[in-house]
């Protein structure tokens, strides 16, 4: 299966690159002839047109690449965490919080979508912060809990200062069905746009809630030798 998925991934990447190069090339050549037919431009400006197009095209391509590869990238990068949960290397809510914090800070590191720190609060458990050095700068956890219990949507929680850096805070409530399991407070160095907020929402829905449920289940089994977790049997 991995051979097939690798082939499909390469095919998808290759198709995207070809389509992008053709489109950008078409716009570049069209723009060039349009400019030359309307204005008599000095050579320096034409050189600037070429340079700006190459740089702009390169940056836009890089951004689109990241955007398109983000979902499959998360799946691949999150797989080791799933494996750890399955093999019970992650056996407690605290272990899970630390791994998720580290994962989010490492993975969500893109232009205008750069997670600086993460605070994970799981119901009836101690809050963890990644990087740990920032623990004294993070907002009050009771307030975050109350706010996150009131909604299922990712929401903006204002600006806070971590050390000397101003960060924008977003809260991702973690729900499994009707059960509130906790929240993740994400600190970003810029305000996130709708696309990136949707990524965070999908991350919670597709990767966090069910995996956290597994961890809580194992933890509960270890402690009480019972199948009942937070009221769900």
């Amino acid at each position: 299966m991995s051979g097939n998925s690798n082939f499909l991934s390469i095919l998808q990447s290759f198709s995207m690159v070809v389509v992008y190069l053709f489109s950008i090339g078409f716009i570049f050549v069209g723009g060039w002839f349009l400019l030359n037919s309307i204005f008599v431009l000095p050579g320096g400006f034409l050189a600037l047109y070429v340079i700006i197009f190459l740089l702009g095209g390169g940056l836009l391509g890089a951004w689109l690449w990241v955007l398109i590869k983000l979902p499959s990238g998360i799946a691949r990068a999150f797989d080791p965490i799933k494996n750890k949960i399955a093999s019970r290397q992650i056996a407690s809510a605290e272990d899970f919080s630390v791994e998720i914090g580290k994962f989010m800070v490492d993975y969500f590191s893109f232009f205008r979508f750069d997670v600086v720190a993460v605070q994970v609060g799981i119901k009836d458990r101690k809050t963890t912060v990644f990087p740990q050095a920032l623990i004294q700068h993070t907002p009050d956890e009771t307030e975050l809990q109350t706010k996150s219990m009131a909604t299922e949507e990712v929401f903006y929680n204002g600006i806070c200062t971590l050390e000397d850096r101003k960060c924008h805070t977003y809260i991702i409530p973690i729900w499994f069905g009707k059960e509130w399991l906790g929240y993740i407070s994400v600190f970003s160095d810029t305000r996130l746009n709708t696309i990136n907020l949707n990524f965070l929402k999908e991350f919670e829905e597709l990767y966090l809630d069910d995996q956290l449920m597994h961890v809580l289940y194992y933890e509960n089994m270890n402690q009480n030798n019972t199948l009942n977790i937070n009221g769900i049997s």
Partner: protein
Amino acid sequence: MEITFSFILIALSSFIIWRSTDGFELASDFLGRRLSKGIKGATINAVASSMPEFLSTIFFLFYLNDANGFSGGIGITGGSAVFNILVIPISIYFVLYFSKGIKKIPIARVTFLRDGLILFVMTGFVAWVVNNPQLHWWHGALLTAPYLGYLIYLFFTHKKILGKGDNFSYNAKDKKIHFVDFAMINLEKMVLRGKTIRVTNAWWLLMASIMVMVAGTWMLVYATDRLGEDLGIPILFVSVILAAAASSIPDTMISIRDAKKGNYEDAFSNALGSNIFDISFALGFPLLIYTLLNGAIIMDAKIIASSSDLWFGLFLITGLTILIFIIGNKFNLGKTILLTLLYLIFIGFVWADFKYHIDFVGNVVGFVKDAFGIKKLNEVFQ
């Protein structure tokens, strides 16, 4: 007075390019921190050190918009290649000699042989390309192909290349911006403003550095063109010595910094690596775009003769330099003197070529054709 002004502009443009490369290097180093060494070297490092040559060739071609403009590009890439392969090792030796008292620098012969041979073949290929009376888009495509091929190879094999970097460390600078920071074009301080470098501000720093570099190279091309007109010297000869040196200062600084840190292999291989990128991409890609948009470039006979001589000279110098490096596993004073002599001979050759229109390659080719009866054969068929 006008000549002095052009010289000042060239010196100023070199300073601007050097300062912008500093910011560019920091930003690209950070953004590429998770790439494996092979991919980072072939993409980010190569672009970082060869951006001035690439931008200059585009400006020369589109700004002057003729064969003379392309000769500026040929001159600057050829001159930079000579500068990189000769002056950078010489500078490294003297800096280490005077700052640390090191008299013998260890070198990796295998790396030199591998990269050197690629460079040797590429240089020979350019020498053949510039000997053509018409330059077409496919000449540009052929020049760019080896680099693109290498990139595609890396793209498909990057998962097999082990060892992710991520050993980047950065100490945030003082938040306050002083006048001297503006004067020294300290982009790092102006863009990061005392904050730790992160992805978003690293991209802003990268873009700011590129914009400043664009301004610097535009100034360099303008000054080179102006100086050539004032002195009555074809742009090829001005660019091969002055503009090439001005655009190669960043490479020299990067290599010297690596050498001072003890990374001798990186310091020397940067010179060869950036030459491969210069020749393949910085010369080939602008030629490809220009000829696709404007049709073939018709080369003047004199420009063909001078360019061929220049690149043939570079071809010989590359071969000799590789030999000098791979004989013995240390770089010492004797080798430094040999490289210095080669550089002086190269400058003398360029001067003689300008003064006496030697057309060395043309004469040799003519002689060979005579000797083997190829000319007569051509006449029969024509």
